[in-house]
């Protein structure tokens, strides 16, 4: 509890001083840094296997990454793509929304989400017709 309060206080201090994301992460302490770097490893491995067409394995890696660091926008974005590729549209939408929520200014996440929505809406229109 004490540790958590300390972390929040240091993060607030960092925000007040106009710190960058990296600095904020640094302020969060080594534990958080560790989980981000572990998550990053999972994300990188996931990208490699996705490029080989192994989407199930990639989804597993990115699921692991978002568990390790739920604030990692790229992991949510990639996970959304894997869900989309597998036809799991509800989960894909949730993951895209999470990615966009975490990094609203990231145009790549926004673009992926827009393309997903276009296909999903078109399929819905066909079904309703």
């Amino acid at each position, binding site marked *: 509890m004490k540790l958590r309060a300390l972390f929040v206080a240091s993060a607030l201090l960092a925000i007040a001083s106009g710190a960058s994301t990296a600095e904020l992460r640094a302020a969060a302490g080594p534990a958080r840094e560790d989980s981000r770097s572990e998550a*990053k490893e999972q*994300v*990188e491995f996931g*990208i490699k296997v*996705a*490029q080989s067409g192994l989407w199930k394995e990639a989804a597993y890696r990115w699921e692991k990454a978002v568990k390790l660091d739920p604030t990692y*926008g*790229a992991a949510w*974005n*990639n996970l959304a*793509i894997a869900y*989309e*590729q*597998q*036809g799991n549209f509800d989960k894909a939408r949730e993951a895209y929304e999470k990615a966009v929520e975490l990094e609203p200014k*990231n*145009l*790549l*996440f926004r*673009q*992926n989400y827009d*393309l*997903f929505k*276009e*296909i999903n809406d078109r*399929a819905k229109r*066909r*079904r309703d*017709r």
Partner: protein
Amino acid sequence: MTARNAAAIASALVLSGTLGCTSFYEIPIETPIQPKMDVSMFQRVLIAGFISGGTEDVDANLETVRLLRSQLRSRSSLRVIEAEALRLAELAREARTEPAPPPSPGGAADGQQIAPVPQLPQQAQPPSDQDPIKIRNEKDLERYSSIFADVAFWKKIGEEYQGPLIITGTVLFSPLATAGYVPVEREYFDPLGRRRVMQQRQYQERKGFTLQPKLIYIDGRTGATLYSETLREEVLYPAQTNTPALSSYFELMDKLIPSFLNTLSMQKIRGTRVLVK
């Protein structure tokens, strides 16, 4: 979709500058679109035939039967039954001239008749046997469409082929003519000799075709309608071009086929997404 993808890729490249050290990887994906209908209980499909109308340049019944069969053969897991296409308009007319049985109170007598055959109003009766069948518009089609609700008729057809999924319906392929302002691109060379393209609006008379199939999916075991959908596409060309009706028919069908296939089987839409590190 292709133009959109190209724009997406182009913007992704532009973004690379703005995102600084962010590593990203463009990756092709195939998004599976679930079928609109569950056809898991059928192993076979019969494209029975269509009531067709509009232009007489194309036999829309035969062409639609042939095209849908060939599409299903290569892009669906259902086995396609090869049979002669039914002349449904003629069958509908014959059915009308036969004395109808007295209507049973409460509709379904045997518990299987889901939609009782509606009694057509006097003015909508199909023409007599002596007249050649001429179907020009939707109103003409309506005269014959009671055949789709004839559960006994479809059940009998189904029994002949061991209860397959039956696909039938109507196809209206009609000529279309219109006139109005359309956007055109004009090419010119500026004073420095560079080629430029300018958007303009020009008054044009155009002609083409409209294709409106109504596809009805019937359970061959019960004769009941499972699902139906109406699709519509049109194509217009400048009035001076002479495009054969058959090639317009295929051009329009090309646009409608994905929707038809997606009713019965899962389709995959190709696209690209950007993975980010």
